[in-house]
């Protein structure tokens, strides 16, 4: 007798030559909640996208209810009763709940909408799921968990039998996350829906799971079902045991006793930061680590004058430092390398060289006019350090991603700033250039600059940072970890324990010390 299930077998997938999934097996059964765990870049999002039809795969197969299926698009998946709720919700916020529920499949008679029937159906749905929301309420007036529930309900109403939830609790407080997961669990059991929850927050989700699978480096390293799921084993599996971990190259710099920190941040708060305290000493590189959405990038952007500071102090060289805008920050000697170069990094149609010198064009002004040749020569000189491939006088958009990143890093060098904020400095560059970039970063610190590096790659962070501050839920305690005697596992452990919701940091001061011994 064919068993109802949705199975992935031996999935392999590479992105531009890099293998991200190494023959992954995964199974979902109706009526069960399956937790899919893994660290940043472990391949869980790729697996989810493949199984939801949003992404192709190189080899392996997908088997739905005993039969092989080919999903070419999310629409294909939906017609096979497979649905996915992504982190970015798809609801249209200006429309009412009813309108969203029936979006694209409105009930009508000769083109006239059957408002009453649609509203009644929506009301019934909401009632069924115990959601205290009116069918006519506008989506934008609802809370985030409510929206999430509505999106889930909509997918169920479209007859989804297998439902993927991508990081459903990221934006939620611990209690709200509990509510949501309890709701999901109940639906799964009552309606016999197979639910997959993809997340890196272990402790929040684990209690609500029937099955747990952990991916590390694109392979399944742990799999268990209800009575035998052990939280410590899950955490160990996520953190990974890699004995041949590359060692850090440099001897970490430690601030000599008595030297004063150049940058002091005390209990900094903004709309998304809930208390960040840290210090950076001259000559040292401070690494910022944390899960996605923990506030690392937001912190950099705040120092760069992009977000309003609501409370707390920032002192630079002992002087209060509040940049009101990026141009103000640049004038005060701050350089910032954005994490998303395409979104807010470079000007696509502008030449590579001009992109490098963009923030300091006025340096090349001669009698009102811009000395193009001097600017270009200077930019060429900066880029020659990295062996940037491509037409430097051509538009930057025609370069490969790695070379674009080198150009933007060249901009940071050219700025010669006192406070350097680097968000994923080596994103997408090849290994050789990575080493060059690390060396330049180290050189900046040696010159006495204040360097702050954000990275999701633990190895990278351990390699370049002297100390590491761990962010979680928008806050960062003043205690930091010495990078020198830290391993990747310890770092991940730290982030997991903080971000996992075991200790909801109320003020960002209480910080568990039990797991990391430095």
């Amino acid at each position, binding site marked *: 007798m064919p068993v109802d299930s949705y199975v992935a077998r031996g999935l392999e997938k590479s992105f531009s030559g890099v293998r991200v999934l190494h023959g992954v097996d995964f199974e979902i059964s109706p009526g069960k909640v399956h937790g899919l765990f893994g660290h940043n870049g472990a391949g869980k999002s790729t697996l989810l996208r493949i199984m939801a039809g949003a992404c192709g795969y190189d080899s392996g197969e997908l088997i739905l209810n005993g039969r092989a299926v080919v999903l070419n698009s999310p629409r294909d998946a939906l017609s096979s009763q497979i649905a996915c709720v992504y982190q970015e919700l798809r609801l249209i916020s200006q429309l009412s709940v009813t309108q969203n529920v029936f979006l694209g499949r409105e009930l009508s008679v000769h083109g006239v909408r059957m408002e009453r029937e649609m509203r009644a159906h929506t009301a019934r749905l909401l009632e069924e799921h115990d959601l205290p929301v009116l069918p006519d309420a506008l989506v934008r007036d609802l809370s985030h968990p409510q929206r999430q529930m509505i999106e889930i309900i909509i997918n169920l109403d479209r007859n989804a039998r297998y439902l993927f939830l991508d990081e459903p609790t990221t934006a939620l407080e611990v209690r709200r996350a509990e509510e949501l997961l309890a709701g999901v669990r109940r639906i799964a059991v009552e309606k016999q829906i197979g639910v997959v929850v993809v997340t890196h927050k272990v402790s929040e989700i684990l209690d609500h799971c029937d099955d747990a699978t952990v991916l590390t480096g694109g392979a399944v390293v742990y799999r268990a079902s209800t009575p035998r799921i052990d939280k410590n084993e899950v955490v160990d599996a996520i953190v990974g045991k890699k004995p041949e971990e590359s060692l850090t190259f440099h001897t970490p710099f430690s601030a000599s006793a008595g030297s004063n920190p150049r940058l002091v941040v005390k209990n900094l708060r903004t709309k998304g930061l809930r208390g960040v305290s840290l210090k950076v000493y001259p000559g040292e590189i401070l690494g910022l680590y944390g899960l996605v959405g923990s506030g690392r990038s937001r912190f950099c952007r705040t120092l*760069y004058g*992009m977000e309003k500071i609501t409370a707390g102090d920032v002192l630079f060289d002992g002087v209060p430092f509040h940049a009101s*805008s*990026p*141009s103000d*920050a*640049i*004038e005060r000697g701050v350089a*910032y390398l*954005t994490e998303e170069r395409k*979104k*807010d*990094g*470079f*000007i*696509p*149609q*502008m*030449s590579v060289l*001009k992109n490098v010198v*963009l*923030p300091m*064009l*006025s340096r*090349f*002004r001669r009698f*009102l*006019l*811009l000395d*193009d040749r001097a600017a270009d020569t200077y930019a060429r000189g900066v880029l020659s350090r990295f062996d940037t491939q491509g*037409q430097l*006088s*051509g*538009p930057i958009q*025609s370069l490969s991603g790695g070379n674009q990143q080198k150009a933007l890093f060249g*901009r940071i060098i050219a700025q010669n700033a006192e406070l350097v904020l680097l968000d994923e400095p080596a994103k997408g560059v090849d290994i050789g250039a990575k080493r060059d970039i690390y060396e330049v970063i180290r050189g900046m610190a040696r010159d006495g600059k204040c360097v702050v590096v954000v990275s999701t790659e633990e190895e990278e962070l351990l390699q370049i940072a002297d100390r590491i501050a761990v962010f979680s839920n928008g806050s960062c305690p003043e205690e930091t970890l010495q990078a020198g005697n830290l391993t990747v596992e310890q770092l991940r452990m730290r982030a997991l324990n903080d971000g996992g919701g075991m200790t909801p940091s109320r003020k960002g001061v209480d910080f568990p010390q039990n797991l990391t011994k430095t």
Partner: protein
Amino acid sequence: MTQPCEPTIRSSFLDRLPRETGIGAVLLCIIAVGHFATPNFLTLSNVKVLLLNGAVIGFLCLGQTFVLLTGGIDLSTGSIVAMSCVFAAVLMQYAGIPWPLAVVLVMGIGIATGMISGLIIHYAGVPPFIVTFAMQGVAASIPQIITGANFIMITQKGYALIGQSRPLGVPFPVIALVMAVVCASIFLKKTVTGTHICAVGGNAEASRLAGINIRKITVLVYAISGFCAACGGLIYGSRIMVGSPNPGRVGDDLFFSIAASVVGGVSLFGGTGTILGAMIGAVMIATVSNLMNVLSINPFWQPLVIGLIILGGVTFDTLHSSKRLRLPWKKLWKSSFGFRGNS
């Protein structure tokens, strides 16, 4: 002309031609067609008429190009032409101000009007389309209110020098336009602010993070556009020596100026385009318009033809920007017209 569009070194000879070659070739074709269609087209007197009529469109197009480069649009220029025309007459006839001072004041009014649009766009975040659309209404009705829709005859003879004098046989508006174009090209290509204008149009957020003062750039481009429109109004007024709330074809001028920029290769999405291209576009529009007059084609046809030209230009721009133009004929098109190649 501007650096975002530098040709690559390793490309073929055709690719190394300036981007304006394509539109220039089209212009030459139109002129050739005109020449063979009627002997009255390529005469010295008609060319002078063509250029004189084109001067106002050219000025509007010049200002419009700055705005388009930042990714905005200025719909108020046509009305500012009318407003300037009337204000000049009011200042001279009613306030008794000597004409040179009146001219400067009118230019100031044009700049101020543009600055107001720019400030609202920057601070309120209202889309440029809406702000300048509203400004168009405001600027159009002020002269009507002042004059009660009547003409004001201008009696200061010196004012006529602007629109009617012909130093060395060339109409002064044409000389003024050429000078303005040279200044604008140098400004855009050779100054820091010019580079910043292209940067803002290419990626506003990245520009802001690179420390560029977005407010300054936004206000500046609309001020330039307002200034150019005021110049257009002065040319109109001094040609007919009348302060008219509806000189020439105000609506058409705005329409033609946007068309000229767009067919000249200035992207409606910002960041790409050159003054030279826009000016060739303006000459092309003026030529098409003039040719239709010379051929005595019903004037009602003109907006239709210009409309089709805009549609063609924008469609090309859109397909090109979204990289959907990967059809086999794209290569052919590129090699035969030297249109912006990618890499």
